[in-house]
Structures are given as C-alpha cells and as structure tokens.
C-alpha cells in the first residue's frame, strides 16, 4: 500500500476541519439563525476556504510561507471547530433523523449513488497529480519553494494564483504536493452540497438529489474533484455568494454584516478568472432590477446601497489582482481593459488571442483558422463540446425540459425569474468569451434546477414519471460507466499494485498533448533537477515534471510580443539568460504552431545554440523532438 493512514485519514480531516473551523465562527457571528447542517457545511467550507486563501495570499506577500505560519491557522481552525462541535452535532442528529424518517426507495438509491461516487473520487484524489491547471499549481509550487510571492513575468494573465491556488500553497506547506488534490475534493464536494442546498429551496428532496448527481456527473466537473483544476473553486464561492444573497433578500435582512460576507464570497469568486467578475455584476444587477421577489421588500435606494456594498467589498478582495495587472501590463482589467484604455487597433492582446481563439477553434470541426469562428456554432457545439481525448458534455435534461417551460409557465412552481436572469446573464458572456463547460458550473447548476422544476410541474399534470426515470437511468448507467472507467486506474496506485513512477508511466499516454513519454524520462534522468526548461506543449501534464520549473513557449511568445522583443535574436537570448532558461524542448510538429520553435531551429542551424538531443519519437519521423542548450 502506498497510501498511508496519514494520507488517507489525517490529511483530509485536518484540511476539512480547518476550513470548517475558520468558517463556522464567522457564520455563527453573522448568521446566528442558520442551523441546518448542510447549509452550515456548505457555507462553512466556502467562507473558511476563502479566509484561508486570503490569509495565504497575505503570508506570501509578506514572505512568510513557512509550515509554522500555516500550522498556526490550522490550529485556529481546529479550535474554532471544537468550539462549534456541539452545535454541529445537534444539527447532524436532526439531519440524520430526517433522512431516516422521510426516506423512500428513490431517495435511498440516489443517496447510495452519491456516496459511491464521492468515495470513488476520494480514492482517486489520493493518487499523485497527473494533470491540472498548470498556471495555478505551478505557481503555488514556486511560492512554497521560495517562501514568498513569485512573479512569472511571462504569465501576463495568471502570474498570481487565485484563492484556490493559495489554498494549494497552504496544503503544500503543511503536507506534501499531492495533498492539493484533497483540497480540490473538499471544494468539489462542497459545491455538490451547495447545488443540493440551492435546489432544495425550489425542489423536492428527490429533485435536489438528482440535481446534485447530474452536476457531479458533468465530465469536467468530476475531473476537477480528483485533479487540481481551479474552476470549481471560484464556482463554489460564486454559488455560496448567490445563495447567501438570495437568502438575505428573502429574509428582508438590512444588516450590514451578512452583505459584507456575501461581497467577500463574490470577491473570492471574482479573483478566479479574468471573466469571473461577471458573477458579481450579475448579482449586483439582479438586486438593482425590480424583480417581484424583492422589489416590495426593498426600496430602490436600499437596493442601490446593497449592490454598492457588494460591489465595493468584492472589488476590495480582487484589488491585488487588478494592481498586479496594472503594474505588469498598464491595464488593471487585463486583457479586457485593452478595449477602452488603449488604442482600438489592439483589440485583444497577444495572449488572449492565442488562448481564447485557439481554444474556440478546437471545438469547431469545420474550420482550422482561429479567426474564423462562426459564433452561432458555439451554441450547437456547447452541449456536447468536442474536445479531443477528453469527455466534455452537459446532461440531456436541460435540453429536454427547458424548452417545455412554456407548458408550465402559468403554474410554475419555480416562479423565481431571478434564476433565469442569473443563469443567462452569467452563461451568455462566458459562452461568447471562452466556451468551455468548466467555466459554467454556476449557470449549469441553476439551469438544472430550472429543468427539474419544469419536470416536477409537468409531472403534476401529465403522467411522465416512468419515461423520466427510464431516461435518467440510461443516462446514469452511461455516465457512471465513464466515471468509473476514468477513475478506476487510480486504484492500482491506491491499493499498492504499482509505484509512483509506474503509475505516471501508465497514465502518460492518456494525455493527448504528451506525445513522447520517453522524452520526459530522458529529461528526468539527464538534466539536473534545478535546470529550468522552455517547452512547447505539455502544459497540462504534470507527470515527471512535478519538481522541475518550466516555461511554456506560448507564454514566452506573448511576453516577447507584449514587450516588442520578438524580432531581435540578441534580445531573445538575453531574455532566456535573464530568466535562467537553460534548455529548450520542442517537437517538430510544433514548428507551425510556435514561431519561436522555427526561430530556435534556425539559430541552432546557424550555430548560435547547441543541440544536445534530437530524435524521432514513437509517432513517426515527422515528429522529431529537439532539446537545445542556450548556454
């Protein structure tokens, strides 16, 4: 067995309890009447992880990233948990009693499915890191290595991790690198709980459980439960903020504290991605618009006040990221400020053009030209996005039930039009900016709730239960099959059948952008571990590069373009030397993808840099791998 008791029990428990223990006292202080276990767990983890993230960010700015600093906040969290343990115990008793009293066959089946699913994801999250959001785990690794905030100038967009990245710093400091997957599991589980809690406001218990299962089974979502991606983090904070604001508006609360907490959560969400502030804008607009549910309870002046408080609090949380962008690029809202702060000719900067448009082009099977994106294609490719080698789809019940909304619109049980507003105002900009399902967990949750609301309405009038259960069962069998197919391979490591190196070797071919596993082994064996490399591709793959610092060729191209250094070879060599980039690795097939690859090959042929390795890999003679040494 490679999984020790510490890894399987001690680490997850400490991480969960410290998040909860930091969050619960704040919740008790601000929302004293909140006693429901699931709401306490959901909001407790969201608030606690947000606070720990901000704490880690502060520590990294002060250069205090040491285990002792983080054990201090862990101790505070454990004390906070003990202080609230009695309260939690009594609400847990009430919840368990309610489950046993009101359970029926379908509820039991759904609960068992959820338990098995999350047990599987938990086991999968104990294995070593295979892949993830490179820009966040890489930088968190460097922050832990250098004990302070690290700047990677070539990552114009993401040289400072968001708050989930700061949680990675926290868990790495007190445990090891692979524990960041456990943080992801805890955050993802809380999101699932949050979708249940939000759904339970509008739906029956079964409907809410089905919502939680359907959200869990969206492929990029469950992948984020056992690999270190960061989308689910900001989605959790966004969902918690939205839930809290809806709750406060319903309670007609006029106190300042709860709205400040809501603003804090929304601010945490807004730090997640460059377009994540859309969530804050949507919520502020929601409060300002005269929706029937809150326009009688709050005057326009009050609503203006609330939305101003929310906007200012969240802006205060995101301020470090805006300052960072301003210092490095001159545009605080980089890259979106380029439109109105700079000349209009520079519509989108180099990095966004290379990221967003190439991503969009991948989903367009008809066109290989990134600038020819037919926007209407986005809508039909979105539900079943084609991303090579990765499963990527939403579930069919949104498509099945939402078009039938008009049949029930007069007697709809979900009369809350604010849900429609939130779902559409968050999802439509994201779909246009960067159409990936993993950016849309919040709107997808809301749309799922609406779809199941339509179903529950229809089933009051028409006899459609059997067909729905049939469709649900077929979909569940298919999705669970894919989930277990994706996760069972981790069990071979968890139960000690293979060691870490064998496990990484097994997993390597699953990743499309990793054509040459031999290369990685060669690099691991021949280059000193502290040597930095510049590499084309491989950005999502961790594998054998867990310890090694590396730069992505994509980002270096953007950096050079931003600083107008791309034409001069002497400048290029100077940049490489300044940043101690000693080795360059690229594939022959990347010649037309990266102009730098062609440039380096020319420089090698002119004798300006030397070659230390070049070989055709297992895909054929066209794909030659070059390793060049700059100095």
């Amino acid at each position, binding site marked *: 067995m490679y999984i020790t008791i510490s890894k399987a029990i001690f680490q997850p428990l400490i991480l969960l309890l410290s998040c909860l223990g930091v969050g619960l006292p704040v919740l008790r202080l601000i929302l004293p009447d909140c006693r429901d276990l699931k709401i306490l767990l959901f909001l407790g983890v969201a608030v606690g992880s947000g606070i720990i993230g901000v704490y880690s960010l502060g520590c990294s700015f002060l250069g205090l990233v040491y285990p002792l600093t983080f054990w201090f906040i862990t101790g505070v969290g454990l004390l906070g948990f003990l202080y609230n343990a009695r309260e939690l115990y009594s609400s847990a008793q009430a919840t368990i009693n309610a489950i046993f009293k009101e359970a*029926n*066959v*379908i509820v039991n089946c759904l609960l068992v499915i959820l338990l098995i699913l999350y047990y599987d994801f938990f086991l999968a999250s104990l294995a070593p890191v295979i892949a993830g959001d490179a820009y966040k785990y890489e930088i968190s690794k460097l922050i832990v290595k250098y004990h302070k905030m690290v700047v990677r100038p070539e990552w114009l967009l993401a040289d400072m991790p968001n708050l989930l990245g700061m949680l990675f710093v926290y868990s790495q400091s007190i445990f090891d690198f692979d524990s960041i997957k456990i943080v992801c599991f805890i955050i993802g589980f809380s999101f699932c709980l949050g979708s249940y809690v939000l759904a339970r406001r509008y739906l*029956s*218990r*079964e*409907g809410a459980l089905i919502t939680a299962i359907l959200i869990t089974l969206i492929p990029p979502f469950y992948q984020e439960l056992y690999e270190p991606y960061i989308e689910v983090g900001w989605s959790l904070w966004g969902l918690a903020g939205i839930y809290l604001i809806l709750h406060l508006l319903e309670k007609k609360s006029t106190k300042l504290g709860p709205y400040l907490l809501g603003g804090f959560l929304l601010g945490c969400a807004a730090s997640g991605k460059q377009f994540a502030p859309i969530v804050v804008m949507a919520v502020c607009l929601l409060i300002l618009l005269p929706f029937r549910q809150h326009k009688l309870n709050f005057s326009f002046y009050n609503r203006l006040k609330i939305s101003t408080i929310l906007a200012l609090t969240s802006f205060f949380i995101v301020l470090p990221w805006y300052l960072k962008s301003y210092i490095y690029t001159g545009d605080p809202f980089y890259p979106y400020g380029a439109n109105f702060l700079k000349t209009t000719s520079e519509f989108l900067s180099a990095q966004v053009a290379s990221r967003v448009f190439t991503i969009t082009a991948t989903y367009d099977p008809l066109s290989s030209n990134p600038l020819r994106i037919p926007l209407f294609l986005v809508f039909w490719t979105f*539900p*079943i996005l*084609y991303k090579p080698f990765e*499963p*990527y*789809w939403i*579930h*069919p*019940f949104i*498509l*099945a*039930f939402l078009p*039938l909304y008009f049949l029930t619109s007069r007697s709809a*049980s979900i009369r809350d039009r604010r849900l429609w507003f939130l779902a559409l105002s968050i999802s439509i900009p994201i779909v246009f900016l960067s159409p990936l399902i993993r950016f849309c967990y919040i709107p997808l949750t809301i749309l799922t709730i609406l779809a199941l609301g339509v179903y*529950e*309405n*229809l*089933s*009051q*009038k*028409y*006899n*459609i*239960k*059997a*067909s*729905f*259960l*049939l*469709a649900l069962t*077929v*979909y569940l069998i*298919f999705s669970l099959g894919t989930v277990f197919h994706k996760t069972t391979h981790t069990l071979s490591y968890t139960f000690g059948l293979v060691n870490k190196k064998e496990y990484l070797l097994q997993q390597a071919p699953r990743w499309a952008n990793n054509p040459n596993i031999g290369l990685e082994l060669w690099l691991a064996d021949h280059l000193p571990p502290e040597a930095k490399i510049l590499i084309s591709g491989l950005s999502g793959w961790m594998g054998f590069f867990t310890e090694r610092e590396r730069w992505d060729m994509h980002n270096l191209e953007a950096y050079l373009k931003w600083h107008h250094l791309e034409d001069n070879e002497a400048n290029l060599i100077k940049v490489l030397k300044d940043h101690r980039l000693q080795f360059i690795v690229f594939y022959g097939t990347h010649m037309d993808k990266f102009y730098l690859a062609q440039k380096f090959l020319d420089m090698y042929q002119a004798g300006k840099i030397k070659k230390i390795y070049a070989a055709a890999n297992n895909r054929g003679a066209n794909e030659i791998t070059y390793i060049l040494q700059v100095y």
Partner: protein
Amino acid sequence: MSLTKRSASSIPLISCLISIWIIAVTAVFLMGIIFLQYQKILTSPLIQQLFSLFGIHP
C-alpha cells in the same frame, strides 16, 4: 410534487408526446456523445458484430 407520488390526473396524448420527447432527447444526446467522443466504440469488433446483425454498416 414528489417523484414517487402518482400524478393527480393525466392527459394521455400530451403525456405520451412529452414522454417520447424526453426519451428521444436523451437518446439523441447519448448518440451524439458516442459519435463525437467515443468513436472507437463504434469500430470495436463487438459493436461491429451487433451492427452487422441488424444489417447496418456505418
């Protein structure tokens, strides 16, 4: 309305149409996923045998 309770009244034609719609959307959706994401499944020997059993040659 709970999923487990029987519906209060039923209008057979519309119930039937909605049922067909739900199952059709799910089926088309799953087929779309299999075509786009799991094309290997379609070319596997077992599925090929099944296809040839029904006289289909995709």
